[in-house]
């Protein structure tokens, strides 16, 4: 898993505090990508329509929260993968606190590019973002 260009990193999470924390740590990390956030799956899918039309750039990476109202992360993921053009968007499923075997399996089946348990605290967070530069997995 690696961020390959400086396009936006997209974060989809219904919790505003979560997005705030991620944006703070992203700034402190070595990544230079701006953060673009959406508070729901439908909002993000709506944005992808503009990407499809070529109005917006393809995200460098999508961090997709699993547990959200309206549409959960899996539903959003499978919807994105329906569009051949979005086949290559790197999408990471973000688990709130457990990497339940079933969830991990489902993430792979739906062609996620990775999964991550939400980091807690400075060290974990920055390590996570930096790992996206060095690439792993």
């Amino acid at each position: 898993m690696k961020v390959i260009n400086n396009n936006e990193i997209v974060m989809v999470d219904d919790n505003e505090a979560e997005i705030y924390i991620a944006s703070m740590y992203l700034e402190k990390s070595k990544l230079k990508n701006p953060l673009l956030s959406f508070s729901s799956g439908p909002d993000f899918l709506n944005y992808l329509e503009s990407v499809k039309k070529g109005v917006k750039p393809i995200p460098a990476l999508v961090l997709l929260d699993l547990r959200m109202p309206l549409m959960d992360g899996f539903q959003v993921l499978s919807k994105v993968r329906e569009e051949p053009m979005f086949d290559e968007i790197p999408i990471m499923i973000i688990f709130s606190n457990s990497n339940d075997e079933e969830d991990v399996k489902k993430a792979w089946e739906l062609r996620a590019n990775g999964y991550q348990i939400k980091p807690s605290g400075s060290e974990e967070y920055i390590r996570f973002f930096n790992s996206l530069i060095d690439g792993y997995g």
Partner: protein
Amino acid sequence: MDTINGKVAVLIVDDKPANLYALKEILKDTHYDIHTANSGMEALKLLLQHEYACCLLDIRMPEMDGFETAELIRHDAQVQHVPIIFVTAEAGDQKDLFKGYEKGAVDFLIKPLEPVVVRSKVKVFGDLYLQKIALKRSQETEDLNKKLVFLNQDLKMANSELEHFTHIAAHDLREPLRRQRSFIDLLRDELPPDVLTKVDDLMQRIYCSSDQMLEMVNDFRTLTKLGQDEFKRSNVNLKEIIEDCLGDFQDKINGRRVQIYFDLFPPIVSVFASLVKRLYTNLIANAFDHVPQGSFAMYFTVENSGSSWIYGVKNTGSYIPQDQLTQIFKIFRKADLSHKEGTGIGLSICKKIIDRHGGRIKAQSGDDGVHIQFTFEKEGGISESD
């Protein structure tokens, strides 16, 4: 109507005391309870009060004769099934005078009475009665069992709902806590060094406090997870598991100069390995939490007890008051042993792990320290999920 404390009762009806006496004499060596009535009316009264294996009914009686009495018996829903043995002076066409055969057994005894015949006829009905009672009892037991199974299912469902709720609650509680830790870190980063030195102690305390809460919530999650059926037994070397656990405490062990001793462990035991690792981790942590300071000794004990092994963790340097020895395994205990470290859920998790293995856990405390012991079946016990 009452059954006469397990004893079979027989009713004799005759207007002549001499005849009653004679029948009583004939039946006195049987183990039946003999009741007597000297008229049809009295017989009916007794029949309503007691349950009889059979009723020996004299045909020739004044006022209400045997047949009339029998008619009345056969018309009363409560007593109509009692078997009737008519006692008659002569053999003959009297059988035809009684029509109520279909409602219950009817038999005849012809005078002069032959004791062997009387006894054997009464015995037939006595045995029948006992069989009927036994059948009724077993049906009642079966009904009760069915009811119990239902109630048990309800209880299990309620319990699993409660565990599910706790699991979700613990899950949701964890999230804001995790965010709080990030906020504390972020705040610390923002503070200029001179301010940070002033408030650092405070920041540490906030951090520790949220850390403790997070640990507690995690323990709750573990506790609720234990009820779920996702574990399998495997054959493991328990000593290796314990050494593995001790590895996580290496710094503390060195720092506190803890001496570790092992009894001779059996090579293999069948357990839920991940749970047992948790069990030993908690017990080791518990020892550290309860020995206030300084060096102490920790013993990993094993005793052979027939079909099971009694394992244990013993530490010197701490003491549990006698009245709290069973309390310590409860989640929400009143007598709080610890203003010390640890969430206090650790030992309840141990209890639940041992429950899960079908074993028992207990704590002992004396001058030489605290010994917590638990059993594992040698043959792997009965796995609930099987």
